[in-house]
């Protein structure tokens, strides 16, 4: 599903963000990407989204070889995955319904399909009643659920979440994580970058820990902090 092969990323200002990163996340997996700020977590996500290009090495996502991807093909690649951000990134001028609808409109989906999928995906995150509200009328947790509904509406096989609970209180965070787990149980691969120790420890999923641009630990049913059991290098 997602594979990094000997990836090195050096930014144009000379910062070495990643040095020789290798990992592989299989279909249907749920993986946490943890590490302190500046460790290279965001760089990995940016590479997955093809926002940045690798300096060396290869990245494969959803069967696309990202180094071979042309600029023209980026939109259709991005449609094959769903993204959730820390700051929600909803369109402020559109209602909840329109925000989710927009993700389908860009794929030129049939109106019939849109009318079926959008309410379904809003129902999944429990926001059917707020369909006509604007993002600024919602709480943070609700906004994040809209973002999740938008990420899910095209039935992507991979969901990327960048600090999805970073702006939320613990209780709401937990709700969002439960929703993401539910999505994962339906067969969608999930990658979550996070700082939240409590969530990572409680959920007992695969943990990939990054530090100073290298993978320090890759562990099934891991914890946020190092506790080397069952360490494993994949692929």
């Amino acid at each position: 599903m997602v594979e990094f092969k000997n990836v090195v990323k050096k930014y144009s200002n000379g910062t070495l963000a990643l040095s020789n990163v290798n990992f592989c996340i299989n279909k249907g997996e749920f993986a946490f990407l943890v590490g302190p700020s500046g460790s290279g977590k965001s760089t990995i996500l940016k590479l997955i989204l093809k926002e940045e290009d690798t300096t060396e090495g290869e990245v494969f996502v959803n069967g696309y070889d990202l180094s071979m991807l042309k600029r023209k093909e980026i939109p259709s690649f991005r449609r094959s995955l769903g993204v959730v951000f820390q700051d929600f990134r909803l369109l402020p001028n559109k209602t909840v319904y329109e925000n989710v609808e927009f993700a389908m409109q860009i794929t030129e989906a049939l109106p019939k399909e849109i009318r079926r999928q959008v309410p379904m995906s809003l129902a999944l995150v429990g926001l059917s009643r707020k369909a006509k509200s604007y993002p600024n009328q919602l709480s943070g947790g609700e906004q994040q659920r809209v973002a999740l509904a938008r990420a899910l509406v095209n039935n992507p096989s991979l969901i990327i979440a960048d600090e999805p609970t970073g702006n939320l209180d613990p209780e709401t965070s937990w709700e969002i994580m439960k929703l993401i787990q539910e999505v994962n149980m339906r067969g969608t691969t999930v990658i979550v970058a996070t700082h939240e120790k409590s969530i990572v420890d409680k959920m007992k999923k695969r943990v990939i820990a990054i530090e100073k641009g290298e993978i320090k630990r890759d562990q099934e049913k891991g914890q946020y902090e190092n506790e080397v059991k069952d360490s494993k290098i994949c692929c």
Partner: protein
Amino acid sequence: MKLRTAKYVVKEGFVNTYRNVLMSLASMGVVTASLVILGFFWIITANINHNTKFLKDQPEMQVFCNPEMDGHQVGMLEWTIGRDKRIKEYKVVDKKQAFEEAKELLGDDKDVLEGLDESIMPVSFIIKLNNSSDYEEVVDKYNNYPGVDSVRYSQKAIDFINKILRGLQIGSSLLITILVIIAVFIISNTIKLTVFARRKEISIMKYIGATDWFIRLPFIVEGVIIGLIGAVASFIVLFIIYNIGGGWVENDFLMVKLVGMNDVGFQLILLTCVLGALVGASGSVLSIRKYLRV
């Protein structure tokens, strides 16, 4: 692109124009002002062209035959002139007429002609050309014609008129080009502000996989709407100016005949609308370019 996408794009363009109403009005104002200036010059050019058209037909030339030429030779020359396609019309001035004219011209001094008769006067042809630019060839041809004494023509006047007309054409098209370029830049700057205010939206769209054209087209529609409304406004302003100012000009300068608004109006509205739409669209394309690189 599918029809419903086109529908979405157009609708989004209208909605965005309405949502950023102040910015849209500012851009429209700029378009209107630029097009009023532009249209004003265009009207002036059209009027100058209209008023100098008669000058172009005016130049005449006179071919003088040698006084010794006999009737047959004169007849031959007349036949040649009559068949020349470059010549619109000609008039024969025979010896008698020429003598009378000379007498009239001399007035009180006509005693000079005492004892002379009309045989000393040459026969001449007054020629009008179809196209003033042919005059050089025509003059050449008849100057070398056997029996022709001289061809008189007002070369300086013809040259002068041609030079002025050419200068006016070049000058006005240069000015119009410059004005269009300025308008594109001002409008793209105004639209840039709109785009800048919505750069976050644009990047969100890119993140969820919208193509460049999907993002760009509503902005282009917005630019075209702004351009078209600005064009119509500028047409109204020009119409009013022309009706008031035109009447004033015609009253004060009797020689000047203005082109009627009915003749010029359709061209003017076409010109302003096409330019307005083009300027709006290119302004949008220019200003959004930077934000699509995510």
